[in-house]
């Protein structure tokens, strides 16, 4: 137990030194680090959001909305297909077109049209590849003919999951673009589970703005206003086919307006959107630019509808409904409607980033202001220093020289923990600091076990060398058993915890490993070297 080959000694010393070197970057700011010589490692411990301040948001993509929208579109497609004049044998008469229980159903009027109708509607189904390698291909719709000419179009399970998955991926991309516009450093956006997104934005001063940016789907469309009747008439009687009542939020209270469902041009055709000011009224506005096909379509529709109003619809609210004074041919336009500089800017951001495929729900939010973060770092630092000092003094008073050995090992231990966290790029949270302080308290346990054992053996009349040998021998299994149990607890916390709690489990787990190493190897080396140099006849412990 007390024999150390030179290479072992070298290895232990090198490892301890590595701990020191890899801890160094944490004492410098990032600017200072770049000025340091190249051999100094650059990686620092990342401070968690609870220490540096920032926002954590757990979002869930409303995939039900994706399915609902798909069925709506499918219903429109069925209508268009069956009414199509170019259909071989002419349009097909139908009745009872509707959505029920996640399927689109329609009844063909004449029995002789049934097969033709089935054939035509089967054409709506497309192939999707169900695995990454394109091996398995499947239809995305189950189109079946039932009794009495009833045709059912049911999205397949595979297509549902594919769509939901792609909606989540797309949402992540849009969320990323929107957050990038905030200009904060190193936001993190990650998928969690099937349909959740974790957003972490450090150092944010206005989390409400972040939420406002993520809370909007930002579906923009330009549609014609239905002028066959007024909105009041429609509300009192019946909304005409192909139109719907929306509200103009410009007014207080919001005014109803009858808008056609058909979209002239949608937000997908936008190539740019910028905040600006109206040249006449000096009111904040958003200017936008369509792509070529969008511009052409917009030009055609406006040319055909001069003098009539059109509605700019954002997330089912009418922002404004200006009259078309002349055909708008250049594909440029502006949106006004009582914006402030900030809201105009935010809307421009949303339009540039694109619409979310489905609404996002905020399931959880945790925001820590920079003030509290700084306070926590300071409190953690003071607590760590005082706790550390108290333990070191107590150990030195209890074990004398051996206590000093244990304390040196304890210091090496702290460096090793910091170095491991830096190398792993682990996140240090406030509970994480608590984990380190707790490890300091518990790390001495291994040494205590050994020292107490040595004391016992001396009392039993063993020679110093034997007492030390036996002490280390017998304490080893106990140390391992005792630490493995704590490590199990840390591992479970890591698996099941999140955020700050996870940070705690990391420091606790790392601390257990380094403390066993320092207690059993580093202290033992010091004891061995001391013993070799002194050869004491009697051991005072």
């Amino acid at each position, binding site marked *: 137990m007390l024999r150390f080959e030179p290479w072992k000694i070298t290895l232990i010393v090198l490892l301890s030194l590595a701990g020191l070197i890899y801890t160094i970057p944490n004492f410098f700011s990032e600017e200072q680090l770049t000025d340091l010589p190249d051999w100094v490692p650059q990686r620092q411990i990342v401070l968690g959001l609870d220490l540096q301040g920032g926002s954590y948001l757990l979002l869930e993509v409303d995939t039900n909305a994706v399915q609902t929208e798909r069925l709506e579109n499918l219903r429109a497609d069925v209508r268009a297909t069956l009414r199509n004049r170019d259909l071989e044998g002419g349009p097909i008469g139908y009745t009872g077109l509707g959505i029920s229980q996640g399927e689109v159903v329609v009844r063909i009027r004449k029995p002789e049209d049934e097969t033709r109708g089935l054939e035509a509607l089967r054409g709506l189904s497309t192939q999707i590849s169900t695995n990454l390698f394109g091996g398995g291909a499947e239809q995305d719709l189950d189109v079946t003919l039932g009794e009495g000419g009833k045709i059912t179009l049911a999205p397949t399970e595979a297509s549902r999951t594919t769509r939901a998955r792609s909606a989540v991926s797309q949402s992540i991309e849009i969320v990323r673009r929107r957050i990038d516009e905030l200009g904060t450093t190193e936001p993190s956006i990650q998928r969690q589970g099937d349909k959740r997104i974790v957003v972490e934005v450090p150092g944010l001063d206005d989390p409400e703005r972040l939420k406002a940016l993520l809370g909007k789907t930002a579906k923009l469309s330009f549609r014609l206003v239905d002028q066959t009747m007024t909105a009041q008439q429609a509300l009192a009687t019946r909304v005409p086919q192909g139109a719907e009542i929306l509200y103009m939020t410009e007014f207080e209270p919001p005014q109803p307006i009858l808008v056609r469902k058909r979209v002239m041009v949608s937000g997908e055709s936008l190539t740019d959107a910028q905040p600006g000011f109206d040249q006449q009224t000096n009111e904040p506005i958003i200017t936008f630019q369509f792509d070529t096909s969008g511009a052409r379509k917009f030009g055609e529709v406006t040319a055909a509808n001069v003098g009539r109003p059109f509605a700019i619809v954002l997330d089912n609210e009418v922002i404004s409904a200006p009259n078309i004074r002349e055909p708008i041919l250049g594909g440029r336009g502006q949106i006004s409607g009582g914006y402030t500089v900030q809201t105009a800017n935010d809307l421009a951001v949303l339009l540039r980033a694109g619409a979310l495929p489905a609404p996002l729900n905020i399931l959880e939010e945790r925001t820590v202001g920079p003030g509290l973060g700084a306070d926590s770092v300071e*409190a953690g630092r003071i607590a760590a220093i005082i706790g550390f000092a108290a333990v070191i003094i107590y150990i030195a008073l209890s074990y004398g020289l051996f206590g000093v050995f244990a304390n040196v090992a304890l210091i090496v231990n702290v460096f090793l923990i910091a170095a491991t966290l830096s190398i792993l790029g682990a996140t240090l949270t406030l509970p994480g600091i608590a984990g380190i302080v707790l490890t300091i308290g518990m790390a001495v346990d291994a040494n205590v076990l050994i020292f107490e054992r040595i004391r016992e053996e001396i009392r039993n009349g063993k020679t110093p060398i034997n007492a030390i040998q036996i002490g280390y021998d017998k304490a080893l299994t106990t140390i391992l058993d005792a630490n493995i149990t704590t490590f199990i607890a840390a591992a479970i916390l890591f698996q099941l915890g999140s955020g700050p709690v996870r940070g705690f489990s990391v420091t606790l787990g790392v601390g257990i490993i380094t403390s066993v190493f320092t207690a059993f190897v580093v202290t033992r080396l010091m004891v061995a070297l001391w013993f070799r140099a002194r050869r004491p006849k009697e051991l005072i412990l």
Partner: protein
Amino acid sequence: MFRLKLVPENTAFRFVALRYVAYAVSMLMVVASMGLFLTNGLNFGIDFRGGTMIEIGTEGPADIGGLRNRLSLLNLGDVQVQEFGAPNEVLIRVEQQAETEGSDQSVVELIRAELGEGVEYRRVEVVGPKVSSELIEAGTLAVVIAVILMLVYIWFRFEWQFSVGAVLALLHDVLLTIGIFSIFQLEFNLSIIAAILTIVGYSMNDTVVVYDRVRENLRKYKKLNLDELLDRSINETLSRTAMTSITTLLALLALYIFGGEVIRGFTFAMMWGVFIGTYSSIFIAAPLLMILGVKRDWSVAAPSSTPSV
């Protein structure tokens, strides 16, 4: 040479003789804890109950009563306003608004609008109903898995009697921790689950050290009465037990006093856990071996699980 020794050498306390007192006291406390949990309940934080928590900093001492009145006018249901660590820091807790996601988000906006300028938002946490129920599940699962793994590990390393004794002591510690949180109505949140898991680890650590010595002595003193053997084992490890508990408590005390309000509940739970874990290793885990019975003949290499006292 001076040595600080809180536990003298060669102690011979008769711990095992006190076991019936210890069992009675522990049973009483466990029953009381469970009773409190069922009647008084736990002061669940928003992690488990859902809702909104806002910590604000005000210029100068905060007018808690005034704040409470202003916020109660917002019709948000149960609103708690309390000082948090310093006179100019206030913690506001608002109950969950509805079972639908997103309904709690408007709470933050309403409160921000009500409090206006001149308030620093130090911390804002909103937990929706979906997440809070998941966190309850994950937290309970974590503690259950931890206890089962400990049971299996000790069984693997020792004999089943040790395993059962250790886990009973462990459950004792966990229940008493829940009890103290119930009696003082301290906030029970996610970090307390982390603390409980650490207590599980620590208490196990302590128990294992004593059990290790018991096993060693079982091999060494084949003819010694079990109660004397247990006493001997506890006494031999007593100075270590005291030493480790004290260093851990020293470190935790520093955290408790200087670590800030945010983790005070967390460190409190751990201090209590270290205290109760140390007690249970000595007075519960070890004496339980008397009841469970342990194999006395360790000369046979193959371990058998049949007790033969």
